[in-house]
């Protein structure tokens, strides 16, 4: 598949792994209005590409992502108001969760992740980081409320750590090592230069599994964050049963018995 041209992102495929790379390194990958629109398109394109099994999201330069581009906000007279409608309607399209991407998504944090950058930690399935990555949330230090990305995080990791970041603001940073201890991320890559190789290797591992089974699994697990335990299990059982009779469920055991890689069915439309 040939992807459209992007200004503030790089979108490419390496084997079964689709790469979405924040590409405004001179602005620490802060999200301009243009980049926000490009995210919506990039996720959709990677999700559509039948050759992409897993998506890795990372950044160019010394930052992963630093949230809304404050310079743009401050300089053109429109300010945050441009986003009021979409926020009040919760009509957002810049993460894979917003765009309902059901392929596995790995966020590979290559450096500073600040403020709105946490959206892509909260909304990824798997998060790994370079050993020199640092996390902090300056919202309240500049008079802004932090909610959506912190809400996503506190469903996924110990809450106290999220609240501490939210209230300490820019006066403290969380290390990649502590993020690993807390289960916010599952792998620290050292030396940091190895991050993309490790992300590719992890993406390739995951891409060896049944795309259809992973899609139903991802739906069940994210859906569980919407409900109480019993309701979530009930809905999860529905996803589980939906795969029964799928050809991958014959192919998986057969390939295992024959000690070969399984030939999975390509994803059909949901």
């Amino acid at each position, binding site marked *: 598949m040939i992807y459209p041209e992007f200004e503030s992102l790089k979108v490419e495929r390496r084997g079964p792994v689709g790469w979405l790379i924040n590409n405004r390194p001179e602005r620490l990958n802060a999200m301009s209005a243009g980049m926000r629109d490009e995210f919506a398109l990039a996720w959709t394109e990677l999700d559509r590409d039948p050759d992409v099994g897993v998506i890795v999201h990372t950044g160019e330069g010394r930052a992963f992502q630093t949230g809304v581009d*404050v310079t743009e906000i*401050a300089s053109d007279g429109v*300010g*945050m*108001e441009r*986003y*009021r409608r979409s*926020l*009040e309607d*919760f009509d*957002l399209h810049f993460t894979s969760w917003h765009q309902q991407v059901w392929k596995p998504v790995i966020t590979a944090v290559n450096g500073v992740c600040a403020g709105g950058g946490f959206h892509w930690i909260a909304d990824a399935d798997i998060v790994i980081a370079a050993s020199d990555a640092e996390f902090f949330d300056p*919202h*309240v*230090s*500049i*008079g*802004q*409320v*932090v*909610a*959506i990305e*912190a*809400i*996503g995080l*506190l*469903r996924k*990791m*110990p*809450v*106290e*750590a*999220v*609240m*501490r970041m*939210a*209230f*300490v*603001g820019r*006066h*403290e940073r969380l290390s990649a090592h502590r993020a690993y*201890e*807390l*289960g916010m991320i599952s792998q620290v890559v050292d030396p940091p230069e190895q991050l993309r190789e490790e992300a590719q290797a992890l993406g390739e591992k995951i891409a060896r599994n049944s795309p259809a089974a992973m899609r139903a699994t991802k739906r069940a697990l*994210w859906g569980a*964050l*919407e*409900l109480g335990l019993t309701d979530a299990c009930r809905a999860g059982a529905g996803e589980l049963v939906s795969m029964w009779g799928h050809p991958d469920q014959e192919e998986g055991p057969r390939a295992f018995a024959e000690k070969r890689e399984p030939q999975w069915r390509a994803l059909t439309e949901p």
Partner: protein
Amino acid sequence: MARSATQRVTYQTLDVERRGRVGWLVFDRPEVGNAMDATMFTELEDAWRELDRDPEVRVIVNTGNGPAFQTGLDVAQLSKDKEALREQSRRTRDATLRLTAWHNEVWKPVIAAVNGTCAGGGLHFVADADVVIASSNAVFVDPHVSLGQVSAYETIGLIRKSPMEPIVRMALAGVHEHIDASRARQLGILSQVVDPPERLRDEAQLLAEKIARNSPAAMRVTKQALWGALDVGLTDACRAGARAVASLWGHPDQEEGPRAFAHKREPEWQPLEPLDVDDEGARA
């Protein structure tokens, strides 16, 4: 019950003080492990309200005098005060307790600084704090089931906030096991262990002063959004959170913050507007 913000109350079971912009709420019944008697029940409500309403106070630290942080109900005292015991039982049954900052709808940031044993009902104050730190000799234990009592309220709060297995283990092991400060940090129940233990209050004050440098208005809306998120599903929580974010747009702190940052000076935040709540500030 209406008191002006500046009026200082005298407490028998608590120390309530200010150090700069930090309000301190200190359990002060060290001879009984700071256990809560009928007087402390009333005084906790008054103290949270006093600190919440004081415009000079930006952040609240909650700790205890003596070797314990908080050890729950003072059963011995309450057995002599049937009326108080009945009232507390009723509030427990109706989930209308007024012990903690969360119960009392305090929307300023609250740091629990656990200075020693935190047992049983004392866990309420850990579950309901925004930030938790502890001295290296602090321990967490839940004796309820060893006394034939059910553990639910405070442990439910904790399982929302940390890995569940250690909390259930603590609830079921009763007096026969405890979690120490360093394990609690590994688990993310708390974020900082202070050693030597004598440094706890200094570290709590420092942390509170850091937090006090941030916009009070932004922190209040943030706190409401994050705690509210624990009550609903993810999408509904994000939806409410998104509205919370936009609700503060246009607030003067949002001009002041970036301006102060650009000029490399401390921001001058607006004082908090009073919240439009009834005098009892009830969590109905």
